[in-house]
């Protein structure tokens, strides 16, 4: 069995959660990762009173970027925006329970960074 390609990661890749697009998202943001074959992911988000009430992702990419997006949607759905805002990059990855190898960091971070920019208008993580 593979180290980075765990059952959990492969499961999210083969059975992506919350895959697709929302009809009327409050915000929809698509970004690409030039470091990895110009992969693109789009996140659609709906908020109500500071809560993330719905989220979908779509796009194409490597296993790590797609699995990370799928895990992300699972974890943030129902969460309060305020609870996630002050997490550092590493804390955020910890919450998602993914620890990519160095060369796949950008892939793993593609969806989280789209989320950060969409939700808070800030691409940078707090220190």
């Amino acid at each position: 069995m593979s180290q980075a390609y765990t059952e959990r990661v492969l499961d999210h890749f083969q059975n992506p959660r919350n895959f697709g697009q929302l009809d009327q998202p409050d915000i929809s943001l698509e970004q690409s990762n030039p470091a990895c074959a110009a992969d693109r992911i789009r996140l659609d988000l709906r908020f109500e009173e500071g809560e993330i009430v719905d989220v979908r992702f779509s796009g194409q990419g490597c296993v790590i970027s797609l699995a990370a997006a799928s895990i992300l949607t699972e974890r943030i759905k129902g969460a309060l925006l305020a609870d996630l805002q002050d997490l550092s990059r590493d804390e955020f990855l910890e919450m998602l329970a993914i620890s990519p190898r160095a060369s796949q960091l950008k892939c793993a971070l593609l969806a989280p960074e789209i989320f950060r920019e969409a939700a808070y208008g800030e691409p940078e993580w707090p220190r």
Partner: protein
Amino acid sequence: MMREWTQIEAQSDFPVLQRKINGKPLIYLDNAATTQKPNSVINAISDFYATSNANVHRATHTLGEEATHKYECARNRVRKLLNAQNSSEIVFVRSATEAINLVSHSWGLSNVQPGDIILLTEMEHHSNLIPWQLLTQDRGARIELLGIDDSGLLKMEDLDRYLDERVRLLAITGMSNVLGTINPIEEVAKRAHEVGALVLVDGAQSVPHLPVDVQALDCDFLVCSGHKMLGPTGIGVLYARQKLLREMPPFMSGGEMIKEVSFTNATWSDPPSKFEAGTPPIAQAIGFGAAIEYLQKIGLARVHEHECSLVEYAMAQFREIPGLEIYGPGPDHRGGILSFNLNNTHPHDLAAILDEQGIAIRAGHHCAQPLINRLGVRAMARASFYLYNTFDEVDRVAEALLMAKRILTT
């Protein structure tokens, strides 16, 4: 596994090849990105620092004389390797990329006029594409592209289409770093010269893997990088005809490249030093000299032959893998580079899973994004061979690819 009839017994000369990655012996197949270094190169660098280190030129002391001598011997080794007429035609720079930038700035800005054409091919590396985009944008000139056919060979009929007096320069790779295609430079150069165009050969992939003779090719410029041919990082070469170097203005300026300087003006020394402003990569040139010595002991023709056998064998093995698509021409027209995709898998994932088996391949656009897109994909996996690779390693890669396929598609 077939008999390793051309196997060059070289692995023990390369300390990194003794390494294990994730508990598996390293199989290094990212040679088109950079190659490994034999002990003789590593030692040449250490020895220089430990015994003769000094700045070159203008020093009267013994260390300075020794350093200058070794640096100039390295230049002469490059001259011999490329069969240039004169070692003043060999300019040391950081890399092939810098060498192309030197030409696009120095020759380009003073020779390319509005309406002129720089002719490239569809298989150029970014380093032999973007400098010409910037030059032509700056000068109101434009780029035209010799196409490739579906097997990745240069469309020779495009020469008829694009070659006329407006073409100032044809810049073409000796070997594609993606498809492995070896281009017929001699013929192309002859055709270009007929309309008065100059020819620049991007030798970053060809010089390390094939015998290359600038007089036989009759090219005007040729560039290559030391780190892709067993040498250190930080050293590259521009070859250019003496006459061109004499006429070209300097690219960078500073110490060592001057004749006389006042507060308001300066005059230039003769080539090559006119193009070597500041302290050059001294130890790197010397290490590069040692790399050339190593390569010449084996012989570039033998290196090429070995890689051709490897790539032919690998193509046969890979074709057994269902869903694996190989890009580029058949073994007759390519060097030891093999790009491929395995359907329904992302090359980035393939590379990551192969690494867990100790196998280093590369995934991505290989600094040739337009070519990759032209071939209708977003990325490729690439295995690129060198003299120390073996048939046995090819077998292990094929097995690992099958395993990756199982992991990723079930």
